[in-house]
Protein backbone atom coordinates (compact mmCIF):
# COMPACT_ATOMS: atom_id res chain seq x y z
CA UNK A 1 0.00 0.00 0.00
CA UNK A 2 1.49 3.27 -1.05
CA UNK A 3 1.73 6.27 1.21
CA UNK A 4 -1.13 7.96 -0.64
CA UNK A 5 -3.41 4.93 -0.23
CA UNK A 6 -2.63 4.73 3.46
CA UNK A 7 -3.27 8.43 3.80
CA UNK A 8 -6.62 8.17 2.04
CA UNK A 9 -7.55 5.09 4.06
CA UNK A 10 -6.65 6.84 7.30
CA UNK A 11 -8.55 9.92 6.29
CA UNK A 12 -11.65 7.86 5.43
CA UNK A 13 -11.48 6.08 8.73
CA UNK A 14 -11.06 9.38 10.51
CA UNK A 15 -14.12 10.75 8.74
CA UNK A 16 -16.16 7.70 9.67
CA UNK A 17 -18.87 8.63 12.16
CA UNK A 18 -17.20 8.92 15.50
CA UNK A 19 -14.42 6.54 14.32
CA UNK A 20 -16.85 3.67 14.95
CA UNK A 21 -17.58 1.00 12.34
CA UNK A 22 -21.14 0.82 13.58
CA UNK A 23 -22.87 2.40 16.54
CA UNK A 24 -24.20 0.16 19.27
CA UNK A 25 -27.35 2.22 19.31
CA UNK A 26 -27.73 5.07 16.85
CA UNK A 27 -30.03 7.40 18.74
CA UNK A 28 -31.99 9.58 16.40
CA UNK A 29 -34.68 12.16 16.80
CA UNK A 30 -37.21 13.07 14.16
CA UNK A 31 -39.03 16.38 14.23
CA UNK A 32 -42.16 16.74 12.15
CA UNK A 33 -42.45 20.45 11.35
CA UNK A 34 -45.98 19.93 10.05
CA UNK A 35 -47.00 19.00 13.57
CA UNK A 36 -44.95 21.57 15.48
CA UNK A 37 -47.13 24.38 16.80
CA UNK A 38 -44.29 26.28 18.43
CA UNK A 39 -45.83 25.93 21.87
CA UNK A 40 -42.42 25.76 23.64
CA UNK A 41 -43.47 22.87 25.87
CA UNK A 42 -40.26 21.06 24.85
CA UNK A 43 -38.21 24.07 25.90
CA UNK A 44 -39.79 24.11 29.33
CA UNK A 45 -39.50 20.35 29.76
CA UNK A 46 -35.84 20.44 28.81
CA UNK A 47 -35.15 23.28 31.20
CA UNK A 48 -36.74 21.36 34.06
CA UNK A 49 -35.14 18.02 33.22
CA UNK A 50 -31.60 19.20 32.66
CA UNK A 51 -31.15 21.82 35.39
CA UNK A 52 -30.72 24.51 32.78
CA UNK A 53 -30.57 27.89 34.50
CA UNK A 54 -32.85 30.79 33.67
CA UNK A 55 -30.30 33.53 33.07
CA UNK A 56 -32.55 36.54 33.49
CA UNK A 57 -33.19 39.63 31.44
CA UNK A 58 -29.77 41.25 31.83
CA UNK A 59 -27.82 38.20 30.68
CA UNK A 60 -30.29 37.54 27.90
CA UNK A 61 -29.63 41.00 26.50
CA UNK A 62 -25.94 40.03 26.25
CA UNK A 63 -26.90 36.97 24.25
CA UNK A 64 -26.11 34.53 27.01
CA UNK A 65 -29.38 32.67 27.10
CA UNK A 66 -29.42 28.97 27.93
CA UNK A 67 -31.90 26.77 26.11
CA UNK A 68 -30.73 23.35 25.07
CA UNK A 69 -33.68 23.26 22.73
CA UNK A 70 -35.08 26.46 21.31
CA UNK A 71 -37.87 27.29 18.90
CA UNK A 72 -36.67 29.35 15.98
CA UNK A 73 -39.31 31.49 14.31
CA UNK A 74 -39.36 32.37 10.63
CA UNK A 75 -41.82 34.94 9.32
CA UNK A 76 -42.82 34.81 5.70
CA UNK A 77 -44.76 37.43 3.81
CA UNK A 78 -46.17 40.80 4.85
CA UNK A 79 -48.74 41.49 7.52
CA UNK A 80 -52.16 40.48 6.24
CA UNK A 81 -50.74 37.35 4.60
CA UNK A 82 -47.91 36.74 7.06
CA UNK A 83 -46.98 33.18 7.85
CA UNK A 84 -45.04 31.89 10.78
CA UNK A 85 -42.89 28.79 10.66
CA UNK A 86 -41.16 27.10 13.55
CA UNK A 87 -38.07 24.96 13.77
CA UNK A 88 -37.11 23.43 17.11
CA UNK A 89 -33.33 23.61 17.18
CA UNK A 90 -31.27 21.41 19.46
CA UNK A 91 -27.89 19.71 19.35
CA UNK A 92 -27.93 17.65 16.18
CA UNK A 93 -25.60 15.01 17.68
CA UNK A 94 -23.64 15.09 14.42
CA UNK A 95 -21.79 11.93 13.52
CA UNK A 96 -19.06 14.03 11.95
CA UNK A 97 -19.27 16.83 14.48
CA UNK A 98 -17.20 19.96 13.91
CA UNK A 99 -17.20 20.71 17.65
CA UNK A 100 -15.45 17.45 18.52
CA UNK A 101 -12.42 18.10 16.38
CA UNK A 102 -11.49 21.35 18.09
CA UNK A 103 -11.78 20.54 21.77
CA UNK A 104 -8.22 20.74 23.14
CA UNK A 105 -9.00 18.48 26.10
CA UNK A 106 -11.42 16.02 24.45
CA UNK A 107 -14.22 17.12 26.73
CA UNK A 108 -16.53 16.58 23.81
CA UNK A 109 -16.27 13.37 21.86
CA UNK A 110 -18.40 10.79 20.10
CA UNK A 111 -19.47 7.75 22.04
CA UNK A 112 -20.48 4.27 20.93
CA UNK A 113 -24.17 5.20 20.90
CA UNK A 114 -23.69 7.91 18.31
CA UNK A 115 -24.06 10.61 20.91
CA UNK A 116 -22.01 13.76 20.93
CA UNK A 117 -20.95 13.66 24.56
CA UNK A 118 -19.97 16.61 26.71
CA UNK A 119 -18.00 15.90 29.88
CA UNK A 120 -18.49 18.89 32.16
CA UNK A 121 -15.73 18.17 34.64
CA UNK A 122 -13.23 17.91 31.82
CA UNK A 123 -14.27 21.10 30.04
CA UNK A 124 -11.89 24.02 30.46
CA UNK A 125 -14.15 26.53 28.73
CA UNK A 126 -12.22 27.56 25.63
CA UNK A 127 -15.58 27.90 23.83
CA UNK A 128 -13.98 26.70 20.57
CA UNK A 129 -16.74 24.13 20.15
CA UNK A 130 -19.41 26.82 20.27
CA UNK A 131 -17.59 28.69 17.53
CA UNK A 132 -17.36 25.60 15.35
CA UNK A 133 -20.95 24.50 15.87
CA UNK A 134 -22.91 25.49 12.73
CA UNK A 135 -26.22 25.05 14.57
CA UNK A 136 -25.34 27.41 17.44
CA UNK A 137 -26.64 25.01 20.05
CA UNK A 138 -23.79 25.02 22.55
CA UNK A 139 -24.22 27.22 25.58
CA UNK A 140 -21.57 28.57 27.86
CA UNK A 141 -21.92 29.21 31.58
CA UNK A 142 -20.72 32.78 31.95
CA UNK A 143 -21.74 32.79 35.61
CA UNK A 144 -22.53 30.48 38.45
CA UNK A 145 -26.28 30.24 38.49
CA UNK A 146 -28.39 29.80 41.54
CA UNK A 147 -31.93 28.71 42.11
CA UNK A 148 -33.99 30.69 44.59
CA UNK A 149 -35.58 28.59 47.30
CA UNK A 150 -37.68 26.47 46.85
CA UNK A 151 -36.75 26.10 43.17
CA UNK A 152 -33.56 24.21 44.01
CA UNK A 153 -35.81 21.39 45.22
CA UNK A 154 -36.77 20.54 41.65
CA UNK A 155 -33.19 20.13 40.39
CA UNK A 156 -32.68 16.77 38.75
CA UNK A 157 -30.19 14.73 40.80
CA UNK A 158 -29.23 12.69 37.73
CA UNK A 159 -27.83 15.73 35.96
CA UNK A 160 -24.87 17.80 37.08
CA UNK A 161 -25.50 21.41 37.95
CA UNK A 162 -22.91 23.01 35.72
CA UNK A 163 -20.72 25.74 37.06
CA UNK A 164 -19.08 28.82 35.66
CA UNK A 165 -16.73 28.30 32.74
CA UNK A 166 -18.27 25.11 31.41
CA UNK A 167 -19.82 24.49 28.03
CA UNK A 168 -23.09 22.60 27.93
CA UNK A 169 -25.57 21.34 25.39
CA UNK A 170 -28.33 18.87 24.69
CA UNK A 171 -27.39 15.33 25.69
CA UNK A 172 -30.45 13.56 24.26
CA UNK A 173 -31.26 13.13 27.99
CA UNK A 174 -28.42 10.66 28.50
CA UNK A 175 -29.58 10.07 32.09
CA UNK A 176 -32.80 8.59 30.72
CA UNK A 177 -30.92 6.45 28.20
CA UNK A 178 -28.68 5.25 31.01
CA UNK A 179 -31.69 4.41 33.15
CA UNK A 180 -33.41 2.56 30.31
CA UNK A 181 -30.29 0.46 29.81
CA UNK A 182 -30.23 -0.20 33.53
CA UNK A 183 -33.85 -1.39 33.46
CA UNK A 184 -33.10 -3.56 30.44
CA UNK A 185 -30.29 -5.22 32.39
CA UNK A 186 -32.57 -5.75 35.38
CA UNK A 187 -35.02 -7.56 33.10
CA UNK A 188 -32.22 -9.68 31.71
CA UNK A 189 -32.47 -8.06 28.30
CA UNK A 190 -29.46 -7.04 26.26
CA UNK A 191 -31.18 -4.27 24.31
CA UNK A 192 -33.44 -1.35 25.10
CA UNK A 193 -36.82 -1.67 23.41
CA UNK A 194 -38.10 0.94 20.99
CA UNK A 195 -40.11 3.62 22.77
CA UNK A 196 -38.65 2.72 26.15
CA UNK A 197 -36.48 5.80 26.27
CA UNK A 198 -37.70 9.29 25.51
CA UNK A 199 -35.93 12.57 26.12
CA UNK A 200 -37.94 15.13 28.08
CA UNK A 201 -38.80 17.16 24.98
CA UNK A 202 -40.16 14.12 23.12
CA UNK A 203 -42.14 12.99 26.12
CA UNK A 204 -43.80 16.35 26.56
CA UNK A 205 -44.58 17.29 22.93
CA UNK A 206 -48.39 17.60 22.87
CA UNK A 207 -48.70 17.17 19.10
CA UNK A 208 -46.18 14.32 18.98
CA UNK A 209 -44.05 16.20 16.51
CA UNK A 210 -40.94 14.70 18.07
CA UNK A 211 -40.01 11.03 17.99
CA UNK A 212 -36.95 9.32 19.38
CA UNK A 213 -35.40 5.94 18.79
CA UNK A 214 -32.63 3.81 17.38
CA UNK A 215 -32.15 4.06 13.63
CA UNK A 216 -30.13 0.82 13.64
CA UNK A 217 -33.40 -0.93 14.39
CA UNK A 218 -35.39 -1.00 11.12
CA UNK A 219 -38.67 -1.50 12.98
CA UNK A 220 -38.35 1.54 15.21
CA UNK A 221 -40.70 4.47 14.91
CA UNK A 222 -37.90 6.83 14.00
CA UNK A 223 -36.58 4.55 11.21
CA UNK A 224 -39.92 4.78 9.49
CA UNK A 225 -39.76 8.57 9.67
CA UNK A 226 -36.31 8.52 8.08
CA UNK A 227 -37.72 7.03 4.88
CA UNK A 228 -40.39 9.74 4.68
CA UNK A 229 -39.99 11.79 1.46
CA UNK A 230 -40.19 14.97 3.56
CA UNK A 231 -37.14 14.04 5.63
CA UNK A 232 -34.11 16.32 5.50
CA UNK A 233 -31.17 17.40 7.62
CA UNK A 234 -30.54 21.01 8.53
CA UNK A 235 -27.41 22.35 6.79
CA UNK A 236 -26.95 19.02 5.06
CA UNK A 237 -24.36 20.53 2.72
CA UNK A 238 -21.90 20.81 5.60
CA UNK A 239 -21.70 16.99 5.82
CA UNK A 240 -21.99 16.96 9.57
CA UNK A 241 -24.24 13.85 9.39
CA UNK A 242 -26.76 15.01 12.01
CA UNK A 243 -28.75 12.53 14.11
CA UNK A 244 -31.74 14.83 14.14
CA UNK A 245 -33.94 14.52 11.08
CA UNK A 246 -36.58 17.11 10.21
CA UNK A 247 -39.74 16.39 8.23
CA UNK A 248 -40.49 19.36 6.04
CA UNK A 249 -43.59 21.44 6.57
CA UNK A 250 -45.91 21.03 3.62
CA UNK A 251 -47.13 24.41 2.48
CA UNK A 252 -50.52 24.18 0.81
CA UNK A 253 -50.10 27.54 -0.93
CA UNK A 254 -46.67 26.86 -2.37
CA UNK A 255 -46.74 25.98 -6.05
Amino acid sequence: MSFLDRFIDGWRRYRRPGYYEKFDYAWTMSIDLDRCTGCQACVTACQAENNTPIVGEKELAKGREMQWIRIERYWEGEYPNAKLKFIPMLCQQCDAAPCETVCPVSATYHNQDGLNAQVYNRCIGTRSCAVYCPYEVRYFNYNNHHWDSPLEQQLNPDVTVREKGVMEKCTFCVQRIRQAKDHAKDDGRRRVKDGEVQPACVQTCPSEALAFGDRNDPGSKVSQKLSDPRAYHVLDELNTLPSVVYLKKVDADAG
Partner: protein
Amino acid sequence: MVLVALAGMVVGYWANAAFFPGTSPQQPIDFSHKVHAGDNEIPCQYCHVQARRSVSAGVPSVNKCMGCHLEVATDRPQVRLLTNYWESGEPVPWIKVHDLPDFVHFTHKRHVAAGIECQTCHGAVESMDVVSREAPVKMGLCLACHRENEVEHGTDCWTCHK
Protein backbone atom coordinates in the same frame (compact mmCIF):
# COMPACT_ATOMS: atom_id res chain seq x y z
CA MET B 1 14.08 28.93 47.50
CA VAL B 2 13.53 25.25 46.73
CA LEU B 3 13.81 24.43 50.41
CA VAL B 4 11.19 27.04 51.31
CA ALA B 5 8.87 25.62 48.68
CA LEU B 6 9.42 22.09 49.95
CA ALA B 7 8.85 23.16 53.56
CA GLY B 8 5.68 24.92 52.44
CA MET B 9 4.43 21.75 50.82
CA VAL B 10 5.15 19.67 53.93
CA VAL B 11 3.42 22.20 56.19
CA GLY B 12 0.52 22.44 53.77
CA TYR B 13 0.13 18.68 53.64
CA TRP B 14 0.26 18.40 57.41
CA ALA B 15 -2.23 21.25 57.88
CA ASN B 16 -4.55 19.70 55.33
CA ALA B 17 -4.42 16.33 57.03
CA ALA B 18 -4.70 17.78 60.57
CA PHE B 19 -7.37 20.43 60.13
CA PHE B 20 -9.44 19.10 57.28
CA PRO B 21 -9.92 15.44 58.11
CA GLY B 22 -12.43 14.85 55.36
CA THR B 23 -11.93 11.11 55.21
CA SER B 24 -12.97 10.13 58.74
CA PRO B 25 -15.31 12.77 60.15
CA GLN B 26 -16.60 12.84 63.73
CA GLN B 27 -19.98 11.14 63.55
CA PRO B 28 -22.88 12.06 65.86
CA ILE B 29 -22.67 8.58 67.39
CA ASP B 30 -19.44 6.62 67.72
CA PHE B 31 -20.77 3.76 65.66
CA SER B 32 -18.29 0.93 65.15
CA HIS B 33 -18.47 -1.13 61.98
CA LYS B 34 -15.88 -3.43 63.57
CA VAL B 35 -18.29 -4.43 66.34
CA HIS B 36 -21.25 -4.90 64.00
CA ALA B 37 -19.87 -6.22 60.72
CA GLY B 38 -16.61 -7.63 62.09
CA ASP B 39 -17.11 -9.18 65.53
CA ASN B 40 -20.83 -9.96 65.19
CA GLU B 41 -20.65 -10.74 61.48
CA ILE B 42 -23.77 -8.88 60.47
CA PRO B 43 -23.88 -8.86 56.65
CA CYS B 44 -23.45 -5.39 55.07
CA GLN B 45 -26.79 -5.60 53.32
CA TYR B 46 -28.68 -6.41 56.51
CA CYS B 47 -28.50 -2.71 57.32
CA HIS B 48 -27.69 -1.20 53.91
CA VAL B 49 -30.78 -2.78 52.36
CA GLN B 50 -30.99 -0.42 49.41
CA ALA B 51 -27.58 -1.38 47.99
CA ARG B 52 -28.93 -4.22 45.88
CA ARG B 53 -32.07 -2.34 44.86
CA SER B 54 -31.08 1.22 44.22
CA VAL B 55 -28.50 3.70 42.99
CA SER B 56 -27.68 4.65 46.56
CA ALA B 57 -26.79 2.11 49.24
CA GLY B 58 -28.67 4.10 51.83
CA VAL B 59 -28.06 4.61 55.51
CA PRO B 60 -30.27 2.45 57.74
CA SER B 61 -33.12 4.18 59.52
CA VAL B 62 -33.15 4.58 63.30
CA ASN B 63 -35.96 2.04 63.18
CA LYS B 64 -33.53 -0.51 61.76
CA CYS B 65 -31.01 0.15 64.55
CA MET B 66 -33.70 -0.08 67.22
CA GLY B 67 -34.80 -3.43 65.82
CA CYS B 68 -31.84 -4.85 67.74
CA HIS B 69 -31.03 -2.10 70.21
CA LEU B 70 -34.40 -2.20 71.98
CA GLU B 71 -32.98 -5.40 73.48
CA VAL B 72 -29.24 -5.45 72.79
CA ALA B 73 -26.66 -3.43 74.76
CA THR B 74 -29.21 -0.86 75.90
CA ASP B 75 -27.01 0.37 78.75
CA ARG B 76 -24.06 1.52 76.62
CA PRO B 77 -23.68 5.33 76.44
CA GLN B 78 -23.53 5.41 72.62
CA VAL B 79 -26.66 3.26 72.37
CA ARG B 80 -28.36 5.65 74.80
CA LEU B 81 -27.59 8.45 72.33
CA LEU B 82 -29.31 6.39 69.67
CA THR B 83 -32.29 5.80 71.97
CA ASN B 84 -32.57 9.57 72.42
CA TYR B 85 -32.87 10.01 68.65
CA TRP B 86 -35.44 7.18 68.62
CA GLU B 87 -37.52 8.73 71.37
CA SER B 88 -37.45 12.23 69.89
CA GLY B 89 -38.33 10.81 66.46
CA GLU B 90 -35.30 12.39 64.82
CA PRO B 91 -33.03 10.82 62.21
CA VAL B 92 -29.34 10.49 63.12
CA PRO B 93 -27.40 13.16 61.16
CA TRP B 94 -24.70 10.80 59.89
CA ILE B 95 -21.90 12.33 57.86
CA LYS B 96 -21.20 10.74 54.51
CA VAL B 97 -17.68 9.30 54.27
CA HIS B 98 -17.64 7.88 50.76
CA ASP B 99 -19.04 10.89 48.99
CA LEU B 100 -18.59 10.96 45.22
CA PRO B 101 -18.55 14.24 43.34
CA ASP B 102 -21.88 15.34 41.87
CA PHE B 103 -20.72 14.80 38.30
CA VAL B 104 -20.31 11.06 38.87
CA HIS B 105 -23.09 8.58 38.30
CA PHE B 106 -22.52 5.45 40.35
CA THR B 107 -25.17 2.83 40.90
CA HIS B 108 -24.80 0.36 43.75
CA LYS B 109 -27.44 -1.93 42.27
CA ARG B 110 -25.44 -2.71 39.11
CA HIS B 111 -22.24 -3.35 41.03
CA VAL B 112 -23.86 -5.56 43.66
CA ALA B 113 -25.58 -7.50 40.86
CA ALA B 114 -22.19 -7.96 39.19
CA GLY B 115 -20.87 -9.52 42.40
CA ILE B 116 -18.41 -6.77 43.34
CA GLU B 117 -17.48 -7.00 47.02
CA CYS B 118 -18.31 -3.91 49.08
CA GLN B 119 -14.71 -3.92 50.32
CA THR B 120 -13.35 -3.30 46.79
CA CYS B 121 -14.33 0.35 47.03
CA HIS B 122 -15.01 0.85 50.72
CA GLY B 123 -11.95 -0.90 52.14
CA ALA B 124 -12.10 -3.41 54.99
CA VAL B 125 -14.93 -1.61 56.78
CA GLU B 126 -15.55 -4.65 59.01
CA SER B 127 -12.21 -4.02 60.70
CA MET B 128 -12.64 -0.25 61.18
CA ASP B 129 -13.85 1.27 64.42
CA VAL B 130 -14.10 4.63 62.68
CA VAL B 131 -14.76 4.39 58.97
CA SER B 132 -12.29 6.22 56.81
CA ARG B 133 -11.76 6.34 53.08
CA GLU B 134 -9.05 3.74 52.62
CA ALA B 135 -9.52 2.54 49.05
CA PRO B 136 -8.74 5.37 46.61
CA VAL B 137 -12.24 5.86 45.23
CA LYS B 138 -11.10 7.85 42.25
CA MET B 139 -11.48 7.52 38.52
CA GLY B 140 -8.41 5.31 38.28
CA LEU B 141 -9.97 2.67 40.54
CA CYS B 142 -13.19 2.64 38.51
CA LEU B 143 -11.39 2.45 35.16
CA ALA B 144 -8.93 -0.24 36.26
CA CYS B 145 -11.81 -2.45 37.38
CA HIS B 146 -13.89 -1.72 34.28
CA ARG B 147 -10.92 -2.60 32.06
CA GLU B 148 -10.06 -5.74 33.98
CA ASN B 149 -13.61 -7.08 33.91
CA GLU B 150 -14.15 -5.91 30.31
CA VAL B 151 -17.33 -4.04 31.19
CA GLU B 152 -19.38 -3.27 28.10
CA HIS B 153 -18.56 0.34 27.14
CA GLY B 154 -16.97 0.57 30.58
CA THR B 155 -14.45 3.20 29.57
CA ASP B 156 -16.91 5.51 27.85
CA CYS B 157 -17.00 8.85 29.73
CA TRP B 158 -20.79 8.95 29.73
CA THR B 159 -21.03 5.58 31.47
CA CYS B 160 -20.11 7.33 34.72
CA HIS B 161 -20.03 11.07 34.08
CA LYS B 162 -23.31 12.85 33.82
